[in-house]
């Protein structure tokens, strides 16, 4: 198990700003589309099915 729930994001405030800025001018529809792409891109980075399963459970 390599999925961590401990702080791991390099610079939390910067990340959060990046994320929200990227969607500031988007409609909910477009933002949701973007989130779906983002989930897939990040899922590919995680890779392991066991970890992805854990993440999906945790997010429910």
């Amino acid at each position, binding site marked *: 198990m390599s999925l961590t729930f401990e702080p791991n994001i390099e610079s939390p405030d910067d990340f959060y700003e990046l994320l929200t800025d990227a969607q500031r001018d988007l409609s909910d529809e477009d933002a*949701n*589309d973007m989130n*779906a*792409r983002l*989930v*897939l*891109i990040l899922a*590919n980075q995680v890779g392991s099915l066991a970890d992805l399963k854990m993440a999906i459970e945790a997010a429910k």
Partner: protein
Amino acid sequence: MLNTYDFPEFAYVQSEEQKTGNPVRHTVIVVGAGPVGLTAALDFAAQGLNVVVLDDNNTVSVGSRAVCYAKRPLEIWDRLGVGARMIDKGVGWKLGRVFLRDEEVYTFDLLPEDGHKIPAFINLQQYYLEEYMVEACEKSPHIDLRWKHKVVSLHQHDDHVELAVETPDGIFTMEAGWLLACDGANSDVRRMVGAEFTGQFFQDRFLIADIVMKADFPTERWFWFDPDFHRGQSALLHKQSDDVWRLDFQLGWDSDPEVEKRPENIIPRVKAMIGDDVEFELEWASVYQFACRRIDQFRHGRVLFAGDAAHQVSPFGARGANTGVQDIDNLSWKLAAVVKGDAPLALLDTYHGERAYAADDNLLNSTRSTDFITPKNGASKRFRNAVLSLAKTAPFARPLVNSGRLSTPTPYLDSPLNTPDDGEWNGKMRPGTCAADAPISVDGRPGWFLDLLTGGFALLALGVAAEPVDAGAFSPKLIALGTDFDDPDGLVSTRYDAGGGALYLIRPDQHVAARWRNFDAEAVKAAISRATAGAIR
């Protein structure tokens, strides 16, 4: 109707037993002369069983049905002597393209491995397939095809099944030691035995049209998501033989099948897909709703089920007929052994075990494809579209695109008929897997490995000194490398991981039952006993 194909009309003949009113006890009756029932007749005949086939109709499959046939069923048909004709008439292909709107996002190549007799896939209209099998059945002294014979009721006894059969001459009684129901997805027989048939219906409709056109589209499978010519839905284009093309338009749940079926509504859709200037003729069109369902048990007393009567899948992945034919491959040697009194009934129950497992695998794959093509809610649709839009530029998204995962055989890895491996093995030939083909030579003449595996069990000796093993009715045919065949390209040795010597026990349906590095007659006997549910001791 079809202008490239004349439907044969098979003659109805009143049987002696109907004329005289004296029922004959048949060994096996097959209900349904579709691809699966006809394959069953040929395979039972190959096992030496006499078989009567009843069909309520008197011609081959009408309309737009199966198109793509995979390697494994073609190998089975080849073993039964009808494969070459299908492959000759069929159209070979290996490339599939997936489009989002009008842009290509993904191409897959079936990348067939070299050194196999049978191609990865061919496309051929279902009526040709059936016609060829009917002709082969007519030539067999073991097969009695009876057209316009509809099973209307059945009654099970301890040692036989009693049927009421309706013909143009009225209703009469037939009896069979075993009944194999291959009467399709709406199986009457299934209803008559009270079997459950459960699963999932998809809330969507598809217009399937076959057209004749002389156009220079390549022989590839083209699948569009949300194409400009059919916004918000999916579409498919695939070539069949005689310049007939299969077109498939997703319509959505709210569409009206009666309206969509009208030529004046179909023709504009077709033109939008293939272009205004391409001349074509509409051969056949119908609107389908798809489902993925399976029967509870493949055996109910003396009634067995195979093909669509046992499992129905959506066509994305071309799994229907392909998997039904493999049911028969699995069943026929087991049924023959039980009928001849060589094996216990327990062997027949492994038919359910192995084929229900394969059916579930097919259902899972078809359901996943259908869920991708017909997302169940807004969130699934969003993910689907995200996958497609990423696939254009990001290779990681391409394996997620699912426009149908094409049929491959399901290995029976957990089957109780397998003898578990002892020691280290490489490659794919694990017990429960169907034997891989390879080029060989026999007396200096080129041939194919699978052609050596006909009839009963085989004991394949690759660089291991083996002797004949006496296992009664199941005594394996010894096939030794260097004696019975040569392996000029070394592909048998590679595919069977025979570097250090290998001995394989192969079942009559060409599946690996056991393997060893050395010969031990007792071990071989024990494995045969296991593979026949204890038929020999």
